């Protein structure tokens, strides 16, 4: 008993902290999402039910945000992981200037999101003075310039995905290069003596050996991409609905604090829908991983 008391005492700060800042808000969000017609000022509501959910699911802004989020997730997670894997493989097979390249690839990670956003503006935004570097490039090669920031939807989505991939890649490269270097080289020697083709070595040996790390990156990648918001703001400003580039988290934020803000019930409902989506995807990921991921 006394032992238990000590244990609880030691756990107390964490329990208090987590309880107040994690558990209580979570429960509160759940409660909010079922309170209909909640009013911030009077702290009162008309009744309980699922109206908030049906409102959110019918809201065209939410549908747009949902669509944007899914496009970003589906494009950026596989691409960023795949490219990061290719770059890591390249990095681990070169010897000269390896540290230099590693530093270069890691730079985006330590650069401020908004600063990177600024650089992307220079590259992509059309202003009265310039068409943006990429548009100018396209024009030099005979194409038609596009305004990537205020132009057509696909152009904006392209910049968005490009930006996301670019910012999440350094971390993935870091993780994957260390995973690759932890594979015992004797396996490669054994494979070489057995005349294994390079692709087969990668597919049959390297990939299974680093699969736990790849899996970790895929899971966190999915979750991170579903939570995308700040990158969008960095590129398209705070009025994401007007730009048509809102995400689910952006929608939640707007419902709470944006111009149309003051609707915690809608925000809560949207947040819980996002939670349900992330939960489902992560569960599927875990189920797939059981068959494909090998743990040492």
């Amino acid at each position, binding site marked *: 008993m006394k032992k238990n008391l000590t244990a609880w005492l030691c756990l107390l700060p964490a329990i208090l902290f987590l309880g107040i800042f994690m558990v209580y808000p979570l429960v509160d969000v759940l409660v909010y999402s079922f309170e209909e017609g909640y009013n911030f000022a009077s702290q009162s509501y008309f009744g309980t039910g699922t109206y908030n959910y049906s409102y959110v699911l019918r809201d065209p802004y939410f549908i747009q945000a949902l669509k944007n989020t899914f496009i970003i997730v589906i494009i950026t997670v596989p691409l960023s992981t795949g490219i990061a894997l290719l770059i890591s493989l390249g990095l681990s097979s070169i010897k000269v200037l390896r540290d230099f390249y590693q530093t270069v690839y890691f730079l985006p990670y330590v650069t401020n999101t908004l600063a990177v956003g600024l650089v992307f503006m220079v590259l992509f935004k059309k202003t009265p003075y310039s068409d943006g570097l990429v548009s100018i490039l396209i024009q030099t090669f005979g194409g038609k310039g596009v305004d990537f920031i205020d132009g057509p939807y696909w152009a904006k989505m392209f910049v968005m995905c490009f930006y996301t991939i670019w910012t999440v890649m350094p971390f993935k490269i870091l993780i994957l290069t260390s995973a690759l270097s932890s594979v015992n080289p004797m396996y490669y020697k*054994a494979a*070489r*003596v057995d005349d294994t083709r390079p692709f087969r070595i990668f597919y049959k*040996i390297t990939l299974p050996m680093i699969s736990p790390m790849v899996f970790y990156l895929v899971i966190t990648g999915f979750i991170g991409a579903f939570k995308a918001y700040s990158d969008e703001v960095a590129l398209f400003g705070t009025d994401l609905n007007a730009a048509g580039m809102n995400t689910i988290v952006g929608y939640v934020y707007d419902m709470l604090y944006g111009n149309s803000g003051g609707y915690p019930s809608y925000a809560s409902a949207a947040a819980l829908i996002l939670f349900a989506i992330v939960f489902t995807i992560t569960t599927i990921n875990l189920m797939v991983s059981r068959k494909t991921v090998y743990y*040492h």
Partner: protein
Amino acid sequence: MKIVLEHLTKRFPNRNKKIRDEVVAVNDFDFTIPDGKLIGLLGPSGCGKSTALNLICGLEKPTEGKIYFGDLDVTALAPEKRGVGLVFQNYALYPHLSVRENIRFPLENLRGDKKLTKQQMEEKVLEAAKLVQIEELLDRKPNEMSGGQQQRVAIARALVKRPQVLLLDEPLSNLDARLRLQTREELKRIQLETGITTVFVTHDQEEAMSISDTIVVMKDGVLQQMGKPQDIYDDPINLFVAKFLGTPQINVFTGEVIGEKVYIDKAQVCDAPGVRDGDVYVAVRPEGFVVDPSGPLICEFIGREVMGRDTSVIARHGNFLGENIRAIIPSEELIDSKDGSVRFALKPSKVRLFDKGSEERIRVEA
């Protein structure tokens, strides 16, 4: 397939780049490994024996010299083209693949007209598994097996393609003592059954002695002696080889030869016909001591260790190199050590003389 090494040399640049000296891992190897034999490359750690194996395998390129498999010059050939099977010290079994998949792995790499059907592969896998007696383990993962079983799988994987040469790097060093004994017999059996020329590397002289047809003793990249285990044991070419082979180790005393007689600290221990006067090392195999109350070699008696059939007598002597002399005598022999000393006579056939400067063998006229 006989393996011919012709002036084979491998130098590595020094790790410390400031030092220009290169490390010579293998120095001018020039010998032939006969076809269908089991060869043990023996030497202390760091003597270049693994490098020698890697050179034969092709994982390392020689700095100088040539390697022939039969009449074919394979020096420039990549390892996969040489038709060798290699067993690694840590087995290098792919941990995420089952035993069956591990053994099948080399077969799946075959292409062109060598390509096999699933059926043929399965037959070959079974055949290899049977050879090393692991048929019932085919569906296990490597980490679900003991070290000895993993070792067998590694051998099966190396053998499944029927290589011309089988190379084993410290095949027994990761096994416990009992398993080592069992596995080395197994190794010999597999080698006899397949008739594949087999080269294995070891630092354990007992291992090398017990199963090799021929032993190659190395030191610092230089070949010291090559021959049948018993011949090398009986007739070591220098002090290093004499000390390296045999347990307990050969007992070395400083001594001198005066008038064709060998003296250890004034005590005349045996004759040395045809040997010139001078300082020598007198090396005596443990079984070369005879407890004799009137023997010439008087040693301080430390103790005895009874090991059933034999007894080892532990003693000290001022001229002995090292700390304790170990002599092995039959257990029934009595030792009179009341005054704290023990007297030995030496069997001349177990005494070897070495030059004190060069440590080369000094041969005695028969």
